[in-house]
């Protein structure tokens, strides 16, 4: 039964790969080089099969890229690659199950802020040799902050993602709203949208769910705040600093000022996206990977010039700090085909496929020249600009516990919004809790 299933998948994958290799060859100019190396190392892994986890929805662009990458790898090495898609909100649960049951993939895509956590659970294999040589040596070292732990690198940056404000360009046009240059203008724009489009519309959606810190972080960092700083080998919480508080109050004011409804304090970006697609949100902080989903949810009504991005403005003009998000590719710690897995990562994160991954997937390439080229494109410029000054969350395996499981800041915001505590009280408590979580062994 199981063998039959595996055989069936293998046959399908192979058939798919053959078909794609055939049509891919015609349009991709890079194909000859791959073919050349194939003759050298062709049968290297023939008969072996890799499992590769891709994260997110398998939208057509991502699917096409993955198929092409897999076809190229199969052609080069003879190994088969089985691709499985895992939606973002399920990633941690799926990784947990895989690490507990020993049924992990060989290679996986992984969010860069998840690397410390899964490294601490010994779920990733060290791959320092990959980033030390070849194309990967060109990746700027400051992009490897979350991936490098105790001198070893556990994942290769694949594409960067900084967030910007996605807005309803058609509504802005209807209501003659200019693109906000300061925070106050953004608030005014949001209020105007609610006035004209209905009270149940969120002018600017509050994110209080699992990825709330992307929004809160942007606001707090822009105000000059930090979550926590490592002093010696201890994390010291900085949530009570006035700068952080400024950003935090800006964040809670989204609800207390009525820009976003009090009934959705726990919504995450995926939920906001669905509401956006249903004409219930005017603006929210996200990145272009949401666009295919919006197209699908709105049944093709929301796309093209009906929506656009602008960089999140700082309180008194200028661009806000953004979260240095990004997706990495890593070798699973218990990979059955370790060598083949490493070669796959090498190919995927190399300049050719790495840049293609980013550009096809609406992300920013991690290779400097490609990024510089992208900044010339007006549609991508907001992201490139934000990426250049992006910041990251505390690089600690326990950050996920504070960020998602205990939802420390989300809870503090809820207390303030519901009037159960002042910002100072809530942040004071959150600060102690954050320190305790980050400093636990």
């Amino acid at each position, binding site marked *: 039964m199981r063998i039959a299933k595996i055989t069936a998948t293998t046959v399908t994958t192979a058939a798919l790969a053959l078909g794609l290799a055939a049509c891919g060859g015609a349009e991709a100019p890079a194909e000859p080089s791959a073919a050349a190396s194939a003759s050298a190392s062709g049968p290297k892994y023939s008969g072996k099969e890799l499992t590769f986890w891709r994260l997110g929805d398998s939208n057509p662009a991502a699917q096409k890229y993955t198929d092409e990458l897999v076809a190229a790898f199969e052609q080069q090495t003879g190994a088969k690659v089985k691709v499985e898609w895992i939606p973002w909100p399920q990633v*941690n*649960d799926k*990784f*947990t199950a895989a*690490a*507990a*049951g*020993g049924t992990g993939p060989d290679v996986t895509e992984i969010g860069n802020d998840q690397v410390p*956590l899964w490294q*601490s*659970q*010994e*779920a990733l294999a060290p791959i320092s040799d990959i980033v030390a040589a070849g194309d990967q040596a060109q990746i700027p070292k400051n992009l490897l902050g979350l991936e490098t732990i105790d001198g070893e690198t556990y994942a290769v940056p694949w594409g960067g993602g900084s967030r910007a404000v996605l807005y309803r360009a058609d509504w802005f046009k209807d209501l003659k709203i200019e693109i906000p240059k300061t925070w106050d203008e953004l608030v005014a724009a949001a209020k105007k949208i609610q006035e004209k489009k209905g*009270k*149940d519309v969120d002018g600017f959606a509050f994110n209080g*769910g699992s990825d709330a810190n992307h929004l809160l972080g942007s606001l707090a960092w822009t105000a000059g705040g930090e979550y926590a700083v490592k002093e010696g080998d201890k994390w010291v919480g900085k949530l009570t600093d006035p700068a952080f508080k400024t950003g935090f109050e800006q964040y809670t004011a989204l609800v207390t000022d009525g820009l976003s*409804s*009090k*009934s*959705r*304090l*726990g919504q995450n970006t995926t939920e906001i996206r669905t509401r956006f697609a249903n004409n219930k949100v005017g603006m929210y902080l996200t990145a272009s990977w949401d666009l295919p989903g919006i197209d699908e949810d709105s049944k093709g009504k929301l796309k093209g010039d009906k929506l656009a991005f602008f960089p999140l403005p700082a309180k008194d003009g200028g661009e806000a700090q953004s979260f240095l998000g990004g997706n990495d590719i890593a070798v699973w710690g*218990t990979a059955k085909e370790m060598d083949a897995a490493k070669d796959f990562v090498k190919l995927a994160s190399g300049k050719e496929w790495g840049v293609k991954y980013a550009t096809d997937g609406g992300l920013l390439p991690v290779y400097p020249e490609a990024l510089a080229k992208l900044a010339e494109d007006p549609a991508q410029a907001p992201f490139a600009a934000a990426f250049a000054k992006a910041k990251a969350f505390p690089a600690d*395996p*326990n950050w*996920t*516990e504070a960020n*998602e*499981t*205990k*939802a420390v800041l989300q*809870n503090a915001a*809820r207390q303030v919004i*519901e009037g159960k505590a002042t910002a100072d009280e809530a942040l004071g408590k959150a600060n102690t809790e954050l320190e305790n979580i980050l400093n636990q062994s």
Partner: protein
Amino acid sequence: MTDTSTRTRGGGNPSPSGRRRPGRPAKASGLPVWSIPYLLLIPGLLVIGALLLYPMVQVAIMAFQKVGLPQIRPVNKRPPEWVGTDNFSQIFDNEIFWSALRNTLVFAVLAVTLTLVVGTAVGVLLNKLGKKMSTLVIVGIMFAWAVPPVAQGIIWKWLFDAEAGIINWALNLLPDWLSTLVFGRADWTGEPWLNDAWSIYMVLIITVVWASFPFIAVSVLAGLKGIPAELYEAARVDGASAWRTFRKITFPLLRPVFAVLTVLSIIWDFKVFSQLYVLMGGPTNREAFNLSMYSYAEAFRSPPKMGSGAAIALVLTVILLVVTAVYVRQLVKQEDMT
């Protein structure tokens, strides 16, 4: 009588006891007679041992260990580290534990009381109804009892949805003066019922009571059928009121039924999980955690801390055992007094 049983259990005695058919050889299996009941128990014990006792012992051990993914994975597993009572002191220091404990207790008290009251009332009603009507009502309420916990959660989550829920719609249909009089407000558009801890628990209580009262009602009905009608006739002749009849006849005679139903309800309501999980959409609002949810969040949300999760589960089990033991003792005492 004593004589026979001793001899039967004596094992070595080949003389057949009164129950045994004389024709049958005493040692067909080559085993002593006394061992047969135990032998027959073995399969059952093995199943219980493997499925219940072993995991329970395992949880108890884990509560004193630090257990994460590296300790449970099948490939190069690490030995778990003994941490003594660290897991316990950690959870007792955490305010989430105390709010979860409060939520668990308050919820259990309210839900058990309401379930029993509503269930008994419906049971008494069923007893009064004619045969057809009573069958109809039983079939009707049994549908609620048959709904699986996750589906219960989904049904009530939809009803109480802030934007598309029928509850807000219905409340908005009330005349404004009535709504203002009763609730102090007229506009219910977008009222977020599943946001605050208290309103989540209100919905949870409704969900749990809705799904569990039919069982109580039918059990009470079964008990009522066993009470001789003469007692009620006598009460009627003496001119006792309905309430007095219930208190003096029905309740005392149904005491054993109520005892079992209460213990069962306490056990069910203490560990309610699925409905809360669905209503809240996973462990999101930590102020609304109960102990089961807190244990789940600690053990399985990343980074998984199965030791603390097990410690919370252990605390929950101990509380449950104590509450049940105290209650059963109380009942036995009352039984002795009457």
